[in-house]
């Protein structure tokens, strides 16, 4: 046991020098909420929806590992181009809810969407006091579309 605490304690004092130096330097603290942290463009903050582009193909809801996307749609008959022509049907989106209390932020839905309807946005200030309020509908998801940034330039 006697070799445990050894003379002459130089290591201890060097450590004290480091803490003193840290004390006199400015602390690297971001004073949230007065100053905001700007996340990088690719940050996975929230998923936003472009309702015009969605064709209710249900791929995102199927591929989600948590099954947190709830989609309901119906088919509407379109007015034919020529009178007596074939009636085409178009899918209309009734309900597109993402339950952010289940969402894993994995991004599979964004990746599989074949119609460029889902986008990642670095927005992170959407917390709610009640967990049930974390189910966001397509209006709210469409609002976040404005916060989607340009993809960053690539490394040469």
């Amino acid at each position, binding site marked *: 046991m006697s070799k445990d605490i*050894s003379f002459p304690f130089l*290591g201890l004092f060097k*450590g004290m020098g*480091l803490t003193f130096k840290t004390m006199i330097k400015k602390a690297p603290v971001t004073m949230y909420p007065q100053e905001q942290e700007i996340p*990088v463009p*690719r940050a996975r903050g929230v998923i936003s929806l472009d309702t015009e582009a969605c064709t209710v193909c249900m791929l995102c809801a199927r591929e989600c590992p948590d099954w947190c996307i709830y989609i309901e749609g119906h088919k509407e008959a379109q007015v034919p181009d020529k009178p007596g022509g074939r009636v085409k049907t178009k899918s209309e989106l009734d309900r597109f809810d993402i339950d952010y209390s289940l969402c*894993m932020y994995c*991004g599979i839905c964004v990746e599989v969407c074949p119609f460029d309807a889902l986008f990642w946005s670095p927005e992170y200030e959407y917390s709610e006091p009640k967990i049930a309020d974390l189910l966001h509908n397509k209006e709210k998801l469409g609002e976040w579309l404005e916060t989607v940034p340009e993809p960053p330039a*690539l*490394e040469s």
Partner: protein
Amino acid sequence: MTSREMMHRSEVAVSVELETPDMTLNIGPQHPSTHGVLRLVAKVDGERITEVEPVIGYMHRGYEKLSEVRTYAQITTLVNRIDWVSGFANEVPFILGVEKLMDIEAPERAQWIRLILSELFRISSHLVFMSSYPLELGATTPLMHVLREREYILELIEGVTGGRFHPNFNRVGGVKPNYGGGSQTKKQSMDLPAGFFKSTLEAMDRMDQICDDIDTLVTGNELIKARTVDVGIIPGDKAIEYGLSGPNLRASGVAYDLRKVENYLPYDQVEFDVISRTGGDCYDRYLVRLDEIRESVKILRQAIDIIPAGPLQVKVPRILKVPVGQVYSRAENPKGEFGYYIVSEGGKMPYRLKIRSTSFSNLTILPWVLKDQLIPDLVAIMGSLDFVLGDVDR
């Protein structure tokens, strides 16, 4: 009866009276020093521990069962969360196993990006150890200093993948090539963003600096040495017997590093040393991890120069069906050897996924190493083994 026998009998009688039964102490699941919800049922005699039984399972999330009903792409997203400190390193052996079954190989650039991200996560995981281990021993400042530096690494990872802890960046056949599946998003590549190399080199300089700071604050500190030198010695043969791996094994004298043994990523094109020490006590395990941070910094500096241009993923069908077969693939996680045993019956989902997690095997040595130790040493030894409960319980 001879006088000798009488003396012996009286001694026996006295010692039976003075014998106190061992107290059973429950170092319960909610505890600041166990890394998560680990329960240790310890029989203590005063301050000495006579027997320890770890009780695990408080964090069982059922990964292996979940994997039976998920496709390979979905499993990749789940699997990040097993050892949540080293997120990317959990995906790598899984994807490599699937690629082996499908008999495809990822392009060069994808392999290099995997290497870079693996090493970044190795630094991140060892930094978490650096911050939490002195905290358990009582020093409160390394925690804040080290986590401040770790932010730079996490920012780098976020810049590439979008997530700080759970990157979800591996795909079968490479890494994530573009933003999405639609015509516009397919044109936006997920390659390394501009300024990545410069930021990485700056971050590596900071890592060198924080390693020197930790040396000053922790390594040279005589009190830390008094708490960790010759505490919890695990000899090399016992380590192999109990299935230890990673820095724990290398600190006991066995210089076994899967990065050199199995070339699962282009580690043969970078120069680095396998750090090993002969002591096997807590101080050696700590030093091995500290030196491994320096080696990872060396690897990253070389990788940035070597990384070639090229595609990020080979062409794979959208609905992935893996041929029939079984494979065991393993990789060097920051905490040790991490492996997956994948049994595929030819469908979209694996028939069985068995996860060989590092911390589960590292934990099996606890009953042996904690015998006859003092309770404060229990904290020091458990901290030095560096296990994460998510890894133990899956």
